[in-house]
């Protein structure tokens, strides 16, 4: 009853130059309010396609997608997306980039000062309030991704969709931003759907890990519930037997069974 996002029997077929490509087959997924769900799978398995469906950037060939009991037909500000390559507009400052989103969502009801305050607050939340007037090319890759997250958070979305947000970052920056994301999600009680190909990232962040089989006609192979208490600490978890077990479970799926995952699905 608290199910927030519902994907029912979704199919995705792309018409390519080489003919039809069946990307996703029979996807059924429910995401609860406040839940952190990651989609993991080998590259090309359609996890980003599934996220784009939830975002409304693409329309499924068949099946239904619901967000808060309303059909997803187009992108909307209640489903904010953080893109893999940050997608900040290079001609706007960090503040202006965030403000563009804020203005659209709250512009009708709030004064200019309130809107600016919101934008600044979102940047402060990700620790980027020192770079309000900087343009994207003046800040590092990790900082750009923070601003991208701030832009998404500033819209106060019902669900945050993250498409491999840390994929292009170095390991240290990635770990740092994962910790930050955990804190922010705890503070804002956000619902999150995140695409990743990093097993540690998935186990550390998720309540549930959705493991996808290989394409074509990829589907959900297995869903793993990660029952680790929050707040989670990466140092402590590294030696936690449950963490090691979950990690092994995902690795097992991805590397040992991924070809036969459909038959072995639990």
């Amino acid at each position, binding site marked *: 009853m608290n199910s927030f996002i519902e994907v029912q029997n979704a199919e995705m077929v792309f018409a390519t130059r080489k003919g039809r490509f069946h990307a996703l087959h029979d996807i059924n997924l429910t995401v609860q309010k406040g839940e952190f769900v990651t989609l993991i799978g080998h590259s090309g398995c359609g996890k980003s396609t599934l996220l784009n469906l939830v*975002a409304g950037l693409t329309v499924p060939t068949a099946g239904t997608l619901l967000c808060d009991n309303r059909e997803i037909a187009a992108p*909307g*500000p209640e489903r904010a997306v953080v893109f893999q390559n940050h997608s900040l507009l290079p001609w706007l400052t960090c503040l202006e980039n965030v403000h563009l989103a804020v203005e*659209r969502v709250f512009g009708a009801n709030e004064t200019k000062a309130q809107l600016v305050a919101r934008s600044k607050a979102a940047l402060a939340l990700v620790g980027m309030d020192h770079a309000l007037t900087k343009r994207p090319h003046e800040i590092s890759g990790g900082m750009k991704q923070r601003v991208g997250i701030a832009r998404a958070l500033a*819209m106060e979305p019902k669900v945050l969709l993250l498409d491999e947000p840390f994929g292009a970052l170095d390991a240290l920056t990635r770990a740092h931003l994962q910790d930050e994301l955990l804190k922010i999600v705890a503070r804002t009680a956000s619902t999150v759907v995140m695409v990743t190909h990093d097993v540690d990232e998935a186990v550390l962040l998720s309540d549930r890990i959705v493991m996808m089989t290989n394409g074509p006609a990829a589907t959900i192979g297995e869903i793993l519930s990660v029952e680790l208490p929050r707040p989670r600490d990466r140092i402590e978890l590294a030696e936690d037997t449950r963490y090691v077990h979950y990690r092994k479970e995902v690795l097992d799926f991805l590397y040992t069974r991924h070809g036969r995952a459909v038959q072995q699905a639990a």
Partner: protein
Amino acid sequence: MNTVVNSTSNAPAKPATRAWRGLALRAPNGRALLLALLPPVLGLGMLVLVWQLVSSSNSNFPSPLVTWDAAVKLFADPFYSNGPNDQGIGWNILASLKRVALGFGLAAAVGIPLGFLIGRSRFLAGMVNPIVSLLRPVSPLAWLPIGLLVFKAANPAAIWAIFICSIWPMIINTAVGVQRVPQDYMNVARVLNLSEWKIFTKILLPSVLPYMLTGVRLAIGTAWLVIVAAEMLTGGVGIGFWVWDEWNNLNVQHILIAIFVIGVVGLLLEQLLVSVAKRFTYDDV
């Protein structure tokens, strides 16, 4: 080029060298500066040398020195006016620039919005592309009779020729720019659910601007090429007609001066637009 630039003042050489010396002193590597300056100076020197050789073997061809003297006299009073057929070189250049500005401005006013429309709508692109492909390779001068026929006057016909030659690069480059707006930015627009006006001002316009300015730069180069030829045909006041007039007077040194002046003005126009383009180009990533 040196001839013309220097001839605008009586003793330009001294302050120039002093400035260079000052620069060389401040620069840690004077040798690098010398190496940077040497090739262009040598190249221009070669040009003058060839010119001197040609003029010494052909008595009708004025030598660099004779041309220099004529230029000094010409630029001593660039803005005199003895009726429509005898005006200073300054007036002639300004008249040509005015025509270029008018024709070029009209082309920008029509071509850039048209480029946006073509870039946004595949249907419209399908409609306009064959017309552009067909008409673009036509020499702008071929359009001059049409201009004369429609406008029944020389001046608007010259402006028309400028218009028609500068519109193509502006249409094409703007359209390409719109088609190449990164999909990521359009996805941002869709996720943020931006209004059409916001999409235009915050995403389309800034990302198309560098392409648009490339089109404008190509257009101004062509326009300046065409105006000289068009004015030779239409007459009146203008640098192109001035060249033709001096040819009829057999005043060859003035023709040589005109060639340098046309080159310098074209170079300045180009540099102006390059600096504008730099101002509006954003680093990706």
